[in-house]
């Protein structure tokens, strides 16, 4: 599965309405260190190992840096943050339909422009959300 940023539409759904960011620099996902491992007793006779998992209680943290966020969208996200309303964010490949949906997401930080300085990077407003329900779907190209 390869999502190519230049093919993607980014946005979120709230209350049956979908909102698409016109300018988005992509999406990063921090899985909170969820992983499977194997272990064994110190006597070291077991060559298969006993599987265990860790950090399943940690949510995925998704960051979407956007530019040029309209006032209405900015205010809506501020309100959703204040109300702790859950949203579904998405990244959809507009050529193949492959998608990543981040369902039941909580807005971790209200969207805010952190740097007011010269340079293109300083125009970014980051939307940071947390979720336990990230669903990637691969589709065949049409």
């Amino acid at each position: 599965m390869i999502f190519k940023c230049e093919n993607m539409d980014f946005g979120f759904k709230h209350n049956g309405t979908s909102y698409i960011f016109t300018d988005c620099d992509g999406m990063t996902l921090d899985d909170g260190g969820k992983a499977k491992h194997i272990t064994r007793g110190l006597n070291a006779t077991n060559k298969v190992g006993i599987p265990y998992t860790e950090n399943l209680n940690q949510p995925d943290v998704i960051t979407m840096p956007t530019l040029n966020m309209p006032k209405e969208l900015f205010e809506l996200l501020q309100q959703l943050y204040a109300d702790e309303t859950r949203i579904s964010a998405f990244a959809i490949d507009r050529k193949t339909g492959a998608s990543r949906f981040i369902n039941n997401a909580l807005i971790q930080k209200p969207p805010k422009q952190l740097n007011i300085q010269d340079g293109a990077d300083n125009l970014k407003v980051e939307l940071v959300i947390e979720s336990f329900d990230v669903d990637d779907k691969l589709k065949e190209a049409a």
Partner: protein
Amino acid sequence: MADLLLKYAFDVSVKAPLPAVNAAYIKQVLAIVKPKSGAPEGQVIRCVSKLQVEDLTDNQDVGALFDGGLNSVFVLPLLDLNDAQSIIEQTLKDYFTILISSDFECEEVNLLSVGSFNGVVGFTFHLGKEPDAVEFAAKDKHCAFIGSDANGAQNMFFAFGKLLSAANWRSQQYIQTPKNDGIIDLGTADAYFNDRLSFVLTSQQYGNRLAFFVAGGQAISAPYAYENLTLDLQSAAVNYITLNQPAYNITECVILEDELQAVGNKYVVNSIFTGILVNVSLFEDNFRAQATIYAPMPKALWRVRAELIQGEAK
């Protein structure tokens, strides 16, 4: 009406979602009975109490729907079942279940045509009419109940009352029913079970219990769950399109797919379906997308064949 100046200076247009779909008809029943003398015939009448039903018919079956938990029932007093089709066609949107009372003989019911009605049809066959019942039960969404002559169809009406008044689509396994239909031996029960006939089993300890309840060989909840799911999917899709006015592109298809998948997931969470998979894709050049929905048939567990091994587990 807003003042002219307000409207002139600040004109507001409202874009509202469609109201939630009305699925009430799925839980409504049409009971066909013979009219008592002086009662109107050939009209579908909504009754909200047993007393109202008693004004229309002497039949006791319909009251069991209220005992089962329904608050209202459509009643069709009719002398001849051959006249039913045109009346049913005119009132299709009001109900999803037709129950034929014990006023009618199975020979009359076998000739009944329900036209374009695609819901559940139920009739109680009296003991000795099992071959007719088997034939009836083989039809899609047809529930053939077996009961004693003396009780009419009260157990069947009661069971449907319970099914349709429940909060969720469940098969009502072994609920207590009001009448003893005289089915008291395992051999008979096994035979009815194998023939996919619905019936009440009477045991000494537990009394009268619904021992099997199916329609067209499927779990009784299946046709209702599919109808409910279809309606919810339709409602969600229309709502999404109305609110978002989507363009004809893959991104919008995928978002719509996610909306519909969320509807399906609710049914899975409630254990009505084991899994639902929705797929929406572009289909034509414009206007119409193609959706495929996989929803495996809801099933119901009624019996267990167990083996007791008198030894330690290995």
